[in-house]
């Protein structure tokens, strides 16, 4: 964890990280002077009736108080600077790693997001705490012990008895309570899950009259939660009375034993008072230290979660030679197999080739490997067997950048970014002209609704495109893929949410725009692919047939079935 912090603090931030605890030492030193000075006032000033001595020492105390403020304030500022800078660097790094990650089995987006946001914040708080608390409390503890020994060696054995007992006690209680808190957390999760299910499945619950069943289940879990939280809370309830008691006993012993010594004139009143004050300081510091250690262990979980993301970082080895952008836009898949070690292949021995300028249709049910095929072509993943070529050049020998320049994809999931429509449409080509945008929006039939918006292309898009309907988002999504005018266009089920009528209009426009340009259409609807030069039928990761519509009708039983079942497929437009 320390390494992670070091790696993400540079220059001023790193200086601050080390400087802050040192300055904190100053604050601790000032705080520790107070009881000693005070005991001197009582013993020397008071006893001798020396007013000058009292005032002089009071001024000294004031000076230490103000100095303490200065130290504390600087430490705080430096600490927050170091921690914030570290957080900034860490976030930036994490995002970069996640963006460059191209491994097939990777963390879910939701998990990644939590790690970049919450976990980094945890780390940030931790660094803040390290620079302040982790030095302050143990040093106050340590310094307090040293000072009390110096000022009153006769009473020091009291600390020697009380402190070890308290420390052992604290460790035992905290240790025993941790598993109980873990159990409580699990119970909390279960209750939350039942509640969430109940909201999401409200309709099903009503339909089957499961209310009683659900309530029984909840009652059981709720009681379990009550019991678990009670056990956890009760496990630590002993802490505060015992600490209180030990401290009070310490004070009593100090007064009783110290008093008897004072009566025989071995020590003074001032020493006793100072000692008691130190003891209070020490106990407080000890409680804080325990709190910090607990918080620290919580942050360790965060740091290991962050580390997991950092470990995804691949040393992007530059290919030995990067060939120039291929001229032609032909495509070739040679014996391509792709899958994970522990399950059957997702793509199995895929072979096909497509001439420059042809249209390719890919059809198959969900899970047949259609999207994986495109993921390999666009180099989302590199771990496959076989060769994929664009214009005769192995895509592994092209830079990622040129592969993505060559191919534009409209994905089925039509995510839009917050910004305006213009920003979204020029996402793949910031230099696009107004004419390009107009053309793309006409072809994708987005112009229909953009024209009706008061701000046209300047209309704001909310996060995830919430202010547009599913169909509108898909149309913008298609437009976005059209704007870069790439040599190869892939439509990955990109019209699944638009109505039949718009779908066929888009198809018509697209056929004109992409005449003699390499285009791949992936769809579940036969109508979308039936005019393609070549249609591939994918079943369970294998190509079971390929050819044009007429040929497939003869060759493929699966294709014929698909055509017959979809004959009834009439999507109601707004008639």
């Amino acid at each position, binding site marked *: 964890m320390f390494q992670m912090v070091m790696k993400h603090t540079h220059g001023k931030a790193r200086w601050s990280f080390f400087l802050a605890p040192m300055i904190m030492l100053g604050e601790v030193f000032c705080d520790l002077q107070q009881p000693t*000075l*005070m005991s001197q006032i009582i013993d020397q000033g008071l006893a001798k009736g020396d*007013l000058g001595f*009292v005032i002089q020492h*009071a001024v000294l*105390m*004031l000076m230490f108080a*103000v100095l303490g*403020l200065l130290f*504390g*304030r600087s430490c*705080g*500022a430096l600490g*927050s600077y170091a921690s*914030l800078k570290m*957080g*900034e660097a860490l976030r*930036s790094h994490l995002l970069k790693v*996640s963006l460059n990650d191209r491994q097939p089995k990777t963390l879910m987006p939701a998990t990644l997001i939590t790690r*970049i*946001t919450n976990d980094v914040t945890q780390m940030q708080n931790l660094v803040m705490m390290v620079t302040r608390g982790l030095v302050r409390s143990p040093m106050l503890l340590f310094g307090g012990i040293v000072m009390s020994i110096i000022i009153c060696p006769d009473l020091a054995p009291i600390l020697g008895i009380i402190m070890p007992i308290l420390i052992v006690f604290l460790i035992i209680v905290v240790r025993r309570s941790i598993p109980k808190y873990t159990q409580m957390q699990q119970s909390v999760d279960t209750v*939350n899950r039942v509640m969430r*299910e*109940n909201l999401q499945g409200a*309709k099903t619950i009503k*339909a*089957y*009259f499961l209310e009683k069943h659900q309530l029984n289940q909840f009652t059981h879990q709720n009681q379990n939660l009550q019991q678990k939280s009670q056990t956890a809370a*009760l496990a630590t309830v002993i802490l*505060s*009375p*015992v600490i209180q008691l030990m401290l*009070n*006993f310490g004070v009593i012993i100090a007064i*009783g034993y110290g008093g*008897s010594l004072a*009566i025989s004139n071995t020590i003074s009143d001032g020493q006793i*008072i100072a000692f*008691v004050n130190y003891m*209070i300081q020490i106990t407080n510091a000890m409680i804080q230290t325990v709190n910090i250690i607990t918080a620290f262990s919580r942050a360790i979980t965060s740091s290991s979660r962050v580390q997991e993301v950092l470990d995804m970082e691949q040393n992007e080895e530059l290919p030995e030679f990067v060939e120039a952008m291929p001229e032609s836009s032909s495509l070739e898949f040679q014996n391509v197999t792709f899958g994970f070690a522990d399950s059957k292949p997702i793509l199995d021995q895929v072979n096909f080739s497509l001439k420059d300028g042809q249209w390719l249709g890919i059809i198959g*049910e*969900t899970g047949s490997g259609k999207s994986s095929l495109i993921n390999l072509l*666009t180099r989302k993943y590199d771990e496959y067997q076989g060769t994929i070529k664009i214009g005769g050049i192995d895509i592994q020998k092209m830079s990622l950048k040129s592969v*993505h320049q060559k191919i*534009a994809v409209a*994905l089925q999931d039509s*995510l839009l*970014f917050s910004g305006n429509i213009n920003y979204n449409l020029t996402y*793949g080509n910031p230099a696009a002209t107004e004419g390009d945008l107009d053309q793309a929006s006409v072809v994708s039939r987005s112009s229909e609704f953009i024209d009706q918006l008061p701000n046209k292309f300047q209309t704001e898009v909310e996060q995830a495109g919430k202010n547009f309907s599913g169909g509108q988002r898909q149309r913008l999504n298609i437009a*976005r893929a059209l704007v870069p005018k790439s040599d190869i266009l892939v439509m990955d089920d990109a019209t699944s949410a638009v109505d039949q009528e718009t779908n066929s209009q888009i198809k018509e426009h697209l056929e004109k725009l992409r005449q003699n340009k390499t285009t791949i259409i992936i769809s*579940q609807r036969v109508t979308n692919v039936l005019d393609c030069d070549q249609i591939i039928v994918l079943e369970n990761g294998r190509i079971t047939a390929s050819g044009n519509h007429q040929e497939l009708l003869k060759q493929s039983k699966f294709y014929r079935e698909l055509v017959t*079942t*979809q*004959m009834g*497929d*009439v*999507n*109601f437009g*707004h*008639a």
Partner: protein
Amino acid sequence: MDMHRGPRRNIHPQKVALNNWQATVKRMWEYLETYRLKLIIVFLLTIVTTSVTIIGNRMNGVVVDKYIDKNRLHALIMVCLFLAIIYLISSIFTYFQNSMIIKVAQATSQKIRQDVFANLQRLPMKYFDTHDNGDVMSRLTNDVDNINTALMQTFVQLFTGIISVVGMGLAMLILSPILTLIAILSTVMTYLFSRGIAKLTQKAFATQQSSLGQLNTQIEETVSGKQLVQLFNHTDATLENFDRVNAQYTKSAFIAQSLSSVIGPFNNMTNNIAYLLITAIGAISIIGGYGKITVGVIFTFLIYLRNFTGPINNVLNLINTLQLSLASAQRVFELIDEGPEKDAPKAITLKKANGHVEFEHVSFAYDKRLILKDINLAANPGEVVALVGPTGAGKTTIMNLLTNLYPLEKGKVLIDGIDVTQIKRSDLRKLVTVVQQESFLFNMNILENIRLGKPNATDEEVYTAAIRANADKFIRQLPNGYLTELSENATQLSQGQRQLLSIARAFIAESPVLVLDEATASIDSQTEVDVQKAMTALMEKKTSFVIAHRLSTIQNANQILVINHGEIIERGNHQSLLEKGGFYAKLYNSQFD
């Protein structure tokens, strides 16, 4: 105690308008009914423990003045023993006081959660349509937690705080008015200063909060749109943009934090100054011989000071927290008070029905918007009725009225001649089984999920239902077969498989009336054949309503109703509708274009 429940919704709760807080407090008090005696005991214990602290601290000073300075060793030891005993008792009291309050708080929040959840089961469908799940969840979790914390900590702390402040204040005042003034002044200073800083930082924190919002939005968008960023060669631009927002956040956070980081050290300083003032002024007045100040008094004050500033600041914070908890309680009570779905006063028990269904002049409005107009239909037992029409025409709504999920505007819906609003809901919903486009599967095993259709079904019956639903084969192929635990939303199954399970659930329910609501819409064509066969089997001997957008599936229906804009615009069978040459015929022929 803080329960970490993952993302919290109201992290920065706005000050909530507390209308009628007396009523909320009164209601909380009612919840505590069985624990009132315990609460009173807790308060008595608190008074004892706090008094012990006050007296103990004073005794320390007395010891110095009366025994040590006067060389009375025997008396000194006696007093110390006395102190040890009262401290021991006080600690034991504290232990019991804390344990008791934990039990009370946990039991109370359990009871509140139970009441909220129980009422949630009774709420009408409309409530779930119109309320954000996140909001309801937040009431169930965060708000109940807040109440819990209030009971467990805030209450007792506030009480202890007030007793300590008053008790110590009085003791201090009697001992030395001047030194008391110093203590109070330092407390007031600390309070005023942190208030002042808080006002200053408020704006800085608001800026920080808004740039944090931007930052999080960017992270969310970039991570979820990762593939797009890569595909469109946007990585560099995205990172550049992110770095800008990231730096902006750091800057605003630094301003806010370094402003507020003054508070801690400043409080420390005021404490230290008060500390020195008490020592110095005490010493001066002893030397000068003014007043009754002794070394013991100084000693007592120094200890009091450490116990005085804390509680006063605490009390002010606690009042704030308490207000928030009251607001939470109010939000929770709102949910408990939400009007439940009720059976008609003299609802009829109807365990069996032939399955004759009739709609008589049914109209339905939602939010004052008329959705359905004058719907009439009659289905004889065993008939298949198909509803077709564009999305949003009102097909699903008609079926929701059949199960009495929403109140009618006009007209009647009858099963076997009985008005559905007069049938007990539990019976009605067993008579009509609905298979939705996406049925919800629960986080339990497959066996239990299917059994939900008929809670007292035997394992054998479940297997039979699965076999008839064509689901048995794929279930047995799963590593744990019927005992496979489904994760939330059953993501490990395909859409088609999930649908087969919900059909199995419908089989086992064996109800006379069946509604298939676009049950095959989102299924790939291969599984569709299985699902289609399963549904045909399911419809046997039942009055079935089929909502479909594929005309091929409904050609054999006894009646076809064409719905548009909330009205039945055509009705008949496949043949007669084709001959009529209307809307249906146009739709049917368009597929051959």
